[in-house]
C-alpha cells in the first residue's frame, strides 16, 4: 500500500515536472496506432468479407438435394441470422413453340441477402439495380434465355403447368458465375409460384438452398451446429469455397493487414524500449538517492513497476480513445466503401490494446526497470558508477517473449510468424554487425579529421552502445517501412495486373467439337479475342490407389462431385508446376494426370498416387504426374484435372473458351446464341466488377493501415531524439562554454547523425530488398527490385536522422550554457 501510495505520489510529481510525459506519450501513441489498426482492420476486414459475400448472395449457403427441414431455418432464426430460400431445377421453358432448357430459380422475397439484382428492359441491356424479386405471376429470364426464346418484356413463358409474364430481363445476380457448372440459362421466379408449376415431383432433381447472412460469430456457430447433422449430399458453403478469385484477394488482403499491424506494434515496442532506456537514465540518480535514504530494491522495483502499470492503463485508455476517433475519421474518409450495417467497434481492441501495452512495457521496459534497482547507492558520491550490465538473457528474454507473443497473436499462423521472426532476427543481426563496424571505423579515422568531423566521429565511437542501439532501432524501423512500402506496391500492382482491362469477361461452354473453328472465327469476326480453347468431358473420381472413394474415411466433397476433365499439351502461363513434371511429347496418351493444388490439398494426394476415373462408363487409371498452382483470377479456361492429349479421345466432349467481348448492344450476342444454339454463354463481367471492387477497397484499406505504420515509425524517431537529448544538451553546453560556435556544434551533430543515418539507411534498404523478396514469396507476389526505392530509403533515413539531430540540438543552441551547466 505504501508502495502504491509512493508510486502514485511520485507519478503525480514526475508528471507535473514533465519527466514521464515522453514515455506516456509513446505508449499512448503505440496503443492508438494498435487499436486504430485493430478497429480498422476489424471493420475493413469485415467489409471486404461482406463485399466478397455478395458473390454468394449471402454469407453462407446451405445446399440440399432434399426439401430443407424446418429446423434448419428455425435454428438460423434463433441465431438472429437473416435467411432466404432458393429452389433450383432444370426444366424446359416455352415461348409459344420455341423451347429452351433453363435453370428455374424460385426465390423467396428476401433473396438476395448480399448484393443486388440488376435488370433491364431488353436482353444484354444496361442493367439497373433493383430491390426484390419478381411479383407472383411474373418472371425474369436472363439475357441468354430471353434471346434464345425470342421473349421480351410482356411475353408469356410457360413453365411446367404455369404461365408467367416476363416483366423484366435479368442482367445480373450476385451469385452468378460463382461456379461454372450452371450451363443452362436462368429464369428467376417467385417462390410462391413454384407449387403451381407442378414441377416439384418425387423424381425431380431439385436443389434446395437456404441462404444465411448475419454476424460472423453466428454464421460460425451455425456452421458447427450444421456439421453434425448434415444429411448425405447436403453442404454449407461460404465465400471462400464458392469463389476462389474473391477468396484469394480477401486472403491476401487479410494477411497483409495483419502484417502491417504487427509492424506498427513492433515499431511502437522499439519506441517503448527507447523511452524506457531514457527513463532508466533519468532515474539513476534519483534511485541512488532513494537507496542512500534507505529504500530497498523490492520497494524501488514496486514503485516503478506500479508507475509503469498505471502509465499503461492511462495510456491505453487515452490511446484507445485516439484509435477509436481515428477509425471514426477513417470511416468517414472511406464513406461509401464500408457497409453501413457493420456492427459498431467493440471493446475487444481496447482489451487487446491494454494486454499489448502491458506486454510491451513488460518485454521492453522491464529489463531497464530491473537494471534500475541495481543502481549502487555509491552513485550519489561517484556519478560514474552505474548499474552493472544486464545479463544477456534477462535483457533479451522478456523482449523476445513479447515479440513472439505479439507476432503470433496478430498473425495467428506459425509458418508466417516464424518466417517473420527469422527475418527480424537476421535484420537485427545485420544491423548490429554493421553498427559495430561503423563504431570501429569512426574510432580509426577520426585522427586526421576536421574539428567538427572529429567531434561527430568521437561521439559515434564514444557512445558505442547508444550508437549501435540507434542504428538497430532506426534501421529496423526503416527496414520494416520499406518492406511494407515495397510489398504494398507489389500487392496492389499484382492485384491490378491479374485483372488488366483486357481480361476475358465472357465464358463460352458446350462448343461442339466440329463447330469449334467456326465458333472461333465468329468470335474473332465480332472483334473478340478468344483465349485457348480446351476440351471438356465429365467424369467421376472412383478410387485412389485402389481404395474406393466411399471407403476413404475423410474424403472431401470435391471427390464426390462429377468433375470437369480436360486434356492439354501446353501449360498456360497462368499455371505453375509446384511438384512433379509437366508432360513432354513422349507422354502423349500415357495414363498421367496433373492436378490443381486445391484438389491435391482437399484429398491429401501425393505424386505417384493412382486415381481411377469413370468417364462415360470407361474406367481410366492415371498416375499423378504433377501438381499445379492455378491463377483462377486470370479468367481463362482452367481445370482442376488435366490429362495429356490422347488419353480421353474416346469421350465425346465439347469445348470451352473465354474471351474479352464487347458486344454492340445485345444484338451481337443474340446472333451468336441463335447461330450456335448449343453454346452456353456466361457473362463474368459482373463477377469481374465485383472482384475489382474488392481489390480496390482492399488496396484502400492497406494504404490506411500503412499510415498507422508510418505514425509508429515517427514515434520511434521521437523516442530516439528524446533519449539522448539531456546528455547532448549538457555536452554541448560545455563545448559552448569552451568557445565552440553554433556552426561547429551543428556540423558535429550533423556528422554524427548523418553517419548513423547513412549506415542505418544503407543497411535497412538492402535488408529490406531481401526481406521483401522473401515475404513476396510467402505472400505469392511478384517481387521487383526498385533501385529508386533503395536510394529513397537511404536518403530519407539520412535526412530524418540529421533533422532529428538538429531537433535535439536546437534547444541547446538557443539556450545560454549557464542555464544547463549551473
Amino acid at each position, binding site marked *: 500500500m505504501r508502495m502504491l501510495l509512493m508510486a502514485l505520489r*511520485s507519478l503525480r*510529481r514526475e508528471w507535473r515536472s514533465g519527466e514521464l510525459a515522453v514515455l506516456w506519450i509513446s505508449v499512448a501513441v503505440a496503443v492508438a496506432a494498435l487499436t486504430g489498426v485493430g478497429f480498422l482492420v476489424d471493420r475493413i476486414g469485415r467489409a471486404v468479407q461482406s463485399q466478397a459475400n455478395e458473390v454468394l448472395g449471402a454469407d453462407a449457403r446451405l445446399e440440399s438435394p432434399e426439401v430443407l427441414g424446418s429446423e434448419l431455418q428455425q435454428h438460423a432464426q434463433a441465431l438472429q441470422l437473416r435467411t432466404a430460400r432458393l429452389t433450383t431445377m432444370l426444366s424446359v421453358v416455352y415461348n409459344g413453340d420455341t423451347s429452351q432448357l433453363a435453370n428455374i430459380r424460385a426465390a423467396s422475397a428476401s433473396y438476395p441477402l448480399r448484393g443486388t439484382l440488376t435488370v433491364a428492359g431488353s436482353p444484354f441491356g444496361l442493367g439497373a439495380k433493383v430491390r426484390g424479386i419478381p411479383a407472383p405471376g411474373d418472371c425474369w429470364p436472363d439475357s441468354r434465355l430471353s434471346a434464345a426464346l425470342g421473349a421480351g418484356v410482356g411475353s408469356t413463358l410457360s413453365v411446367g403447368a404455369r404461365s408467367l409474364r416476363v416483366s423484366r430481363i435479368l442482367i445480373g445476380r450476385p451469385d452468378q458465375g460463382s461456379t461454372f457448372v450452371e450451363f443452362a440459362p436462368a429464369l428467376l421466379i417467385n417462390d410462391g409460384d413454384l407449387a403451381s408449376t407442378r414441377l416439384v415431383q418425387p423424381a425431380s432433381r431439385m436443389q434446395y438452398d437456404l441462404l444465411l447472412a448475419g454476424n460472423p460469430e453466428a454464421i460460425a456457430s451455425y456452421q458447427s451446429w450444421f456439421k453434425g447433422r448434415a444429411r448425405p449430399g447436403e453442404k454449407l458453403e461460404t465465400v471462400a469455397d464458392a469463389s476462389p478469385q474473391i477468396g484469394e484477394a480477401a486472403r491476401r488482403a487479410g494477411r497483409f493487414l495483419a502484417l502491417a499491424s504487427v509492424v506498427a506494434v513492433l515499431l511502437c515496442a522499439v519506441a517503448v524500449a527507447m523511452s524506457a532506456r531514457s527513463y532508466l537514465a533519468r532515474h539513476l*540518480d*534519483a534511485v541512488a538517492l532513494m537507496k*542512500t*535514504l*534507505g529504500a530497498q*530494491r523490492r520497494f524501488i522495483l514496486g514503485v516503478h513497476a506500479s508507475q509503469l502499470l498505471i502509465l499503461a492503463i492511462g495510456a491505453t485508455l487515452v490511446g484507445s480513445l485516439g484509435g477509436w476517433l481515428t477509425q471514426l475519421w477513417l470511416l468517414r474518409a472511406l464513406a461509401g466503401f464500408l457497409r453501413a450495417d457493420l456492427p459498431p467497434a467493440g471493446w475487444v481492441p481496447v482489451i487487446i490494446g491494454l494486454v499489448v501495452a502491458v506486454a510491451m512495457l513488460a518485454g521492453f521496459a522491464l529489463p531497464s526497470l530491473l537494471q534500475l534497482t541495481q543502481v549502487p547507492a555509491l552513485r550519489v*558520491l561517484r556519478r560514474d558508477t552505474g548499474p552493472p550490465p544486464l545479463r544477456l538473457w534477462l535483457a533479451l528474454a522478456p523482449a523476445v517473449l513479447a515479440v513472439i507473443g505479439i507476432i503470433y497473436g496478430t498473425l495467428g499462423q506459425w509458418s508466417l510468424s516464424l518466417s517473420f521472426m527469422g527475418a527480424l532476427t537476421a535484420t537485427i543481426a545485420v544491423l548490429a554487425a554493421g553498427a559495430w563496424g561503423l563504431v570501429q571505423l569512426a574510432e580509426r579515422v577520426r585522427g586526421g579529421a576536421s574539428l567538427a568531423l572529429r567531434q561527430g566521429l568521437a561521439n559515434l565511437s564514444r557512445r558505442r552502445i547508444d550508437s549501435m542501439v540507434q542504428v538497430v532501432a532506426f534501421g529496423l524501423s526503416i527496414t520494416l517501412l520499406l518492406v511494407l512500402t515495397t510489398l504494398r506496391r507489389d500487392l496492389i500492382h499484382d492485384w491490378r495486373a491479374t485483372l488488366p482491362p483486357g481480361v476475358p469477361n465472357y465464358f463460352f461452354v458446350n462448343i461442339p467439337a466440329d463447330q469449334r473453328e467456326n465458333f472461333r472465327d465468329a468470335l474473332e469476326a465480332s472483334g473478340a479475342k478468344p483465349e485457348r480453347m480446351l476440351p471438356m468431358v465429365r467424369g467421376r473420381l472412383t478410387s485412389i490407389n485402389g481404395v474406393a472413394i466411399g471407403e476413404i474415411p475423410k474424403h472431401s466433397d470435391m471427390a464426390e462431385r462429377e468433375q470437369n476433365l480436360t486434356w492439354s499439351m501446353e501449360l498456360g502461363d497462368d499455371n505453375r508446376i509446384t511438384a512433379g513434371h509437366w508432360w513432354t511429347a513422349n507422354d502423349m496418351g500415357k495414363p498421367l494426370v496433373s492436378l490443381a493444388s486445391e484438389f491435391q490439398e482437399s484429398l491429401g494426394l501425393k505424386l505417384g498416387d493412382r486415381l481411377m476415373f469413370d468417364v462415360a462408363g470407361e474406367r481410366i487409371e492415371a498416375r499423378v504426374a504433377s501438381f499445379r498452382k492455378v491463377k483462377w483470377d486470370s479468367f481463362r479456361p482452367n481445370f482442376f484435372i488435366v490429362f495429356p492429349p490422347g488419353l480421353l479421345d474416346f469421350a465425346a466432349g465439347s469445348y470451352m473458351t473465354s474471351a474479352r467481348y464487347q458486344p454492340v448492344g445485345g444484338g451481337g450476342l443474340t446472333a451468336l446464341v441463335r447461330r450456335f444454339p448449343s453454346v452456353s454463354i456466361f457473362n463474368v463481367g459482373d463477377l469481374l466488377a465485383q472482384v475489382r471492387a474488392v481489390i480496390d477497397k482492399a488496396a484502400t484499406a492497406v494504404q490506411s493501415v500503412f499510415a498507422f505504420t508510418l505514425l509508429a515509425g515517427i514515434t520511434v524517431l521521437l523516442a530516439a531524439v528524446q533519449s539522448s537529448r539531456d546528455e547532448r544538451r549538457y555536452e554541448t553546453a560545455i563545448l559552448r562554454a569552451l568557445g565552440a560556435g553554433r556552426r561547429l556544434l551543428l556540423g558535429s551533430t550533423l556528422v554524427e547523425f548523418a553517419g548513423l543515418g547513412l549506415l542505418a539507411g544503407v543497411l535497412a534498404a538492402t535488408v529490406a530488398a531481401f526481406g521483401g523478396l522473401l515475404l513476396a514469396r510467402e505472400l505469392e507476389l511478384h517481387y521487383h527490385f526498385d533501385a529508386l526505392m533503395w536510394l529513397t530509403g537511404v536518403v530519407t533515413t539520412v535526412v530524418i536522422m540529421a533533422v532529428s539531430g538538429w531537433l535535439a540540438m536546437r534547444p541547446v543552441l538557443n539556450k545560454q550554457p549557464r542555464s544547463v551547466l549551473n
Partner: protein
Amino acid sequence: MDRDIVLCAERVSKQVSSPEGPLTIVREVSFAVRARESVAIAGPSGAGKSTLLALLAGLDTVSSGKLWLASADLTTLDEDGRARLRAQHVGFVFQSFHLVPALTALENVMLPLELRGRSDARARAIEILGRVGLAARVGHYPRQLSGGEQQRVAMARAAVGDPTVLFADEPTGNLDTVTGERIIELLFELNAAAQTTLVLVTHDAALAARCGRVLRMDSGTLV
C-alpha cells in the same frame, strides 16, 4: 563494544581493480566515533576521504576489515540490509546537493520520511524547512533555487529524520565563501539541536577545525 560508540572501523581496506592492476584506495583504517561527536575527515584530493565516507555509510562494501554502524555489522549485511539501516540511522549532505529535480523543495524533504511510511511527513518537512529559512520556498523546484538554497534543502532533508549519524561530503565545495559559511553555521546548529553525530569530509582546514576531532588522511591511510 562501548554502547556509546555509533561508528567503528577496524582495519578497513578498499581495493579496486584498475588497468595497471589492483589499486588500494583505503588501507587498514581503524577508528571509532562516539555519539554526538563531530568528526572531520580531512586531507588532500585523492587521499581516499570520500571512499571512506561511502564505506562508513554503507554505500560501498569493504574489501577487508570490519565496520559497525549503530551497533550493526555493516560487513555482514546485504544491500537491502544496509539500506534499512540507513533509513533508520543515517542522514546525508552532498557536495552537489543531489536534490531530485522533479520534486519541489518540500517533496525532497518529505522523501526520507515517506520511505519510512511516516504520516507526518508533510508537517515535519514544512517545520524543518522553516528552520533552515526556506518557509517561503517550499513549492519551488531545485532549478528555481540558488546553490545555497539547494544545500539548505539538502540539509533539511538530511536532518528531518533525526538520524543517528549525519554524513556530509564537502558540503561547501560547490558554494562561495560567504554562502558556505552560512551553511556551516546551519549544519552545526542543526547538529547541536538534534544531538546528532556528525562525520564530515572536507579539505577545508577551517571547517575541519570546527569539528571536535579531525582524522587526517593521505594516500588511503590515517596519518
